[in-house]
């Protein structure tokens, strides 16, 4: 079908597509619109999680449209979702169309995170498909005059076993009609998405599509340039906005000199609301120029600490959580050797390649916005509250953005576009500039971990103690968008997340104390929030303990593990990497020139189990570290799409390597000083190692995402490999050449 240049401007609650223009787009909602208009698909009626019709519809041509509030963050879930639904319903894969994240069409899916999508996002879809199948089979039994038990389904056609001429298709049964079937939905208070209950049996085996590497539906359009990214939205009458951010976090507006942009062509308005400042212009480059040129004076911002880790230790505590097992004091008393170490991780930026972007149209007491948000419903609630509009008057439509890795858990651009649109009475597109994304995005916060453990004469851990400090990873979430904060009156966000702690080891005496401290900079989840940092501390410490016990790091870990998945992944990477048993840094280098090589292991200690063996090459003169090879193994529950999973694993691991080797947001007294890819570099093609992936299928357990699982063990694997190569122990991420050289010199003293 060719949707060349569509412009539907319809009014009223039933309009599927509100004023959207996407050139050449095969946007799924266009397919729905087309089918409803042609009279082959029931128009989406209610957005009630308790109605089967809100989840799934079948056209008179046998196509299945699935509605979900969950969205694809570039990880390919629209393909894997369609796979599981098609399998459950016994229809061809191609028959399924996914409609994602439109508050007028889809129920609240909760926040989409790459990892939770695969389990919590998928559950209601499988359940809805199973219920639909049950209804369809009951009706088929009626129409065919045969008991349900004698029916089988293939490719959407129900037939009587032993009498295949007696058959009826799904389309004939229900095509273009509603199911009118109630479901039982439960919405957990944590906004993690609706779960559905039902009675129909759910497939547990004999899958036709689950487990197959079905090519992703989005890739052909992505390579052709026709994929409907949010950045491509054009609406008749749309103009361009840019935000003028304060000089520093916490700075308040003193004056705006509007004369400073008098000469800029196309400027429509300089917008001010509280401390929020933005400009709107006819053209994008005009808005950019005006935003640059606008003279604004700000008060000085909040003072930022010189040493953020020292600050963490003394910062205002919000909550302390204590979990323990056994008696660590007694355990330490038994030890023949006690080891302590402190580990630090930096502030990091998600680094979306495409900066935040949204379009909003706020007019006549209603608002529509298009956003790459990871939680369009949450975004909508915030936006309605900020603008003072009733919720029903606000519609949010998700369109894919640049991969966000947690960053768009609540989009910041949409509320800004809405404020600007409200001020000029026209649809406004806002895209952040690169420096905005680097300095004003919510970050992954810094962490500090003090570790202590005792070893007995046999080299077993007698006690294991972690004390951690970190701000919450969710302060930039709903209720706390940057625009709303600047406007004032936002409720803030109080949920605490990303605490340090958690591992799979079986220590007799084990204690974790986690101090959540006040916000340093606005923060948001970043792949493995808290887990990446925890894993770095625990798995580096395990390596230090292995060295102290003069034990092989693989064997030392296995000594303390009972969890079968952890053992499986460690054994798998050891085997495939050709691990040679020896304590860390056994081959002691004598030279200070040339390169040294080493290898390290790390084991993802929270969530899904993963292990990595990394090989590194360290330039002893410059301190530059190159990861030459990595082997990663994961257990991940039932695998829906093995190739898709491999890509996710590689991607997650590469991002984890990049974070560990080079990424750190730098601050001066009041602000972030990083503004681009030169000040905040990430891993590039020549530095990408060879990666071997091992998937350990657990068909009986629920599916899970792996992108974040793969990021988590990266830091410790590299750090341990650096130690193995050089005898230098790095206890602070990232492992920059400077840090390595510094530690080398320290050691040589």
């Amino acid at each position, binding site marked *: 079908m060719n949707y060349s240049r569509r412009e539907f401007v319809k009014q009223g609650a039933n309009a599927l597509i509100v004023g959207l223009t996407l050139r050449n787009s095969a946007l799924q909602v266009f397919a729905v619109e087309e089918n409803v208009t042609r009279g082959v698909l029931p128009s989406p009626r209610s957005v009630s999680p308790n109605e089967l019709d809100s989840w799934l519809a079948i056209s008179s041509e046998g196509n299945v449209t699935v509605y979900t509030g969950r969205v694809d963050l570039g990880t390919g879930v629209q393909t894997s979702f369609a796979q599981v639904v098609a399998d459950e319903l016994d229809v061809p894969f191609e028959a399924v169309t996914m409609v994602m994240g439109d508050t007028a069409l889809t129920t609240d899916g909760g926040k989409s995170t790459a990892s939770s999508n695969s389990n919590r996002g998928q559950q209601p879809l499988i359940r809805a498909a199973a219920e639909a199948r049950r209804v369809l089979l009951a009706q088929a039994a009626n129409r065919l005059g045969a008991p349900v038990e004698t029916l089988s389904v293939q490719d959407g056609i129900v037939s009587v076993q032993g009498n295949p001429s007696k058959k009826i298709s799904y389309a004939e049964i229900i095509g273009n009609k509603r199911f009118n079937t109630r479901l039982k939905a439960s919405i957990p208070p944590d906004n993690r998405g609706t779960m559905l209950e039902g009675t129909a049996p759910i497939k547990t085996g004999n899958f036709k599509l689950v487990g197959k590497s079905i090519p992703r539906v*989005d890739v052909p359009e*992505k390579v052709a340039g026709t994929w409907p990214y949010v950045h491509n939205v054009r609406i008749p009458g749309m103009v361009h906005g840019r935000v003028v951010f304060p000089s520093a976090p916490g700075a308040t507006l003193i004056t705006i000199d509007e004369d400073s942009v008098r000469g800029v062509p196309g400027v429509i308005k300089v917008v001010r609301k509280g401390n929020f400042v933005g400009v709107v212009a006819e053209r994008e480059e005009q808005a950019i120029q005006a935003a640059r040129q606008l003279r604004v004076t700000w008060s000085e911002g909040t003072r930022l600490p010189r040493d953020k880790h020292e600050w963490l230790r003394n910062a205002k505590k919000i909550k302390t959580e204590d979990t323990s097992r056994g008696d660590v004091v007694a355990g330490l008393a038994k030890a023949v050797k006690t080891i302590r170490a402190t580990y630090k991780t930096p502030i990091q930026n998600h680094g979306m390649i*495409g900066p935040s972007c949204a379009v909003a149209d706020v007019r006549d007491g209603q608002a529509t916005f298009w956003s790459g948000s990871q939680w369009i419903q949450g975004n909508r609630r915030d936006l309605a509250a900020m603008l003072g509009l009733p919720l029903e008057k606000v519609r949010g439509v998700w369109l894919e953005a640049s991969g966000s*890795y947690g960053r768009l858990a609540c989009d910041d651009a949409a509320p800004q576009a809405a404020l600007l649109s409200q001020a000029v009475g026209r649809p406004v597109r806002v895209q952040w500039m690169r420096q905005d994304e680097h300095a004003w995005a919510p970050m992954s916060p810094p962490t500090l971990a003090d570790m202590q453990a005792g070893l007995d004469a046999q080299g077993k851990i007698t006690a294991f103690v972690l004390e951690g400090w970190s701000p919450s990873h969710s302060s930039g979430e709903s209720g706390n968008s940057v625009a709303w904060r600047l406007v004032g009156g936002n409720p803030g966000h109080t949920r605490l997340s990303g605490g340090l702690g958690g591992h799979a080891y079986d220590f007799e005496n084990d204690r974790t104390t986690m101090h959540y401290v006040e916000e340093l900079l606005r923060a948001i989840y970043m792949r493995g929030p808290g887990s990446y940092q925890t894993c770095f501390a625990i798995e580096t410490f395990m390596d230090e303990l292995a060295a102290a016990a003069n034990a092989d790091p693989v064997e030392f870990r296995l000594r303390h593990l009972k969890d079968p998945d952890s053992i499986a992944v460690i054994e798998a990477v050891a085997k495939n990497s050709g691990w040679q048993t020896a304590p860390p840094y056994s081959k002691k280098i004598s030279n200070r020139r040339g390169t040294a090589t080493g290898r390290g292991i790390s084991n993802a200690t929270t969530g899904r189990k993963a292990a990595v063996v990394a090989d590194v090459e360290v330039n002893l003169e410059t301190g530059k570290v190159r990861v030459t090879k990595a082997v990663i193994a994961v257990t991940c529950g039932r695998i829906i799409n093995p190739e898709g999973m491999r890509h996710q694993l590689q*991607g997650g691991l590469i991002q984890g390597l990049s974070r560990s080797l080079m990424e750190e947001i730098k601050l001066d007294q009041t602000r972030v000083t990083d503004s681009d890819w030169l000040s905040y570099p990430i891993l590039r093609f020549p530095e990408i190692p060879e990666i071997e992936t091992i998937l350990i299928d657990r068909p009986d357990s629920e599916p899970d995402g792996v992108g974040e699982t793969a990021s988590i063990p990266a830091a410790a694997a590299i750090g341990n490999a650096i130690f193995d190569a050089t005898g230098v122990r790095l206890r602070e991420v990232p492992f920059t050449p400077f840090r390595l050289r510094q530690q080398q010199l320290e050691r040589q003293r």
Partner: protein
Amino acid sequence: MKFALRVNGKLQSVDVAPETPLLYVLRNDLELDGPKFGCGLGQCGACTVILQDQAIRSCSMRVDAVGRREITTLEGIGSRGRLHPIQEAFVSEQAAQCGYCINGMIMTAKAFLDKNPRPAEPAIRQALAGNLCRCGTHLEIIRAVQRAAQTRSASPSGQSLKKRGTA
């Protein structure tokens, strides 16, 4: 100011300020969504287009500097129904996660392969060193470029990449 641009084989006229970055003209005036805004600083490659036979960063080129030179965007090398062999290779290798960087990868690879039909792997990495990908799709992208190079050297004309490039 009026400019006549040769884009994807067509002559297009636009009326914009001379210092306007080419990227905004392509995206906003000509509605070509292939090139993307990533940094506006020439650092990431998301905005890459081909100018004559050079991969350039359209965010960092003023529209008045283009002159009569031919601009090719992602849309100009292939379309959904008729993908260019490099695009096909990206599909075969499933070389896209979010895909935001992919325009730059394909356009950079095209200009590179047109000059280096049988590159070794390290040369491919070097050619793409200025293009950033945050999803970690690098290994798939490298394989896609290798595959495209192989397809091309296997094709009888050996020129298929180039010919369709200006179609």
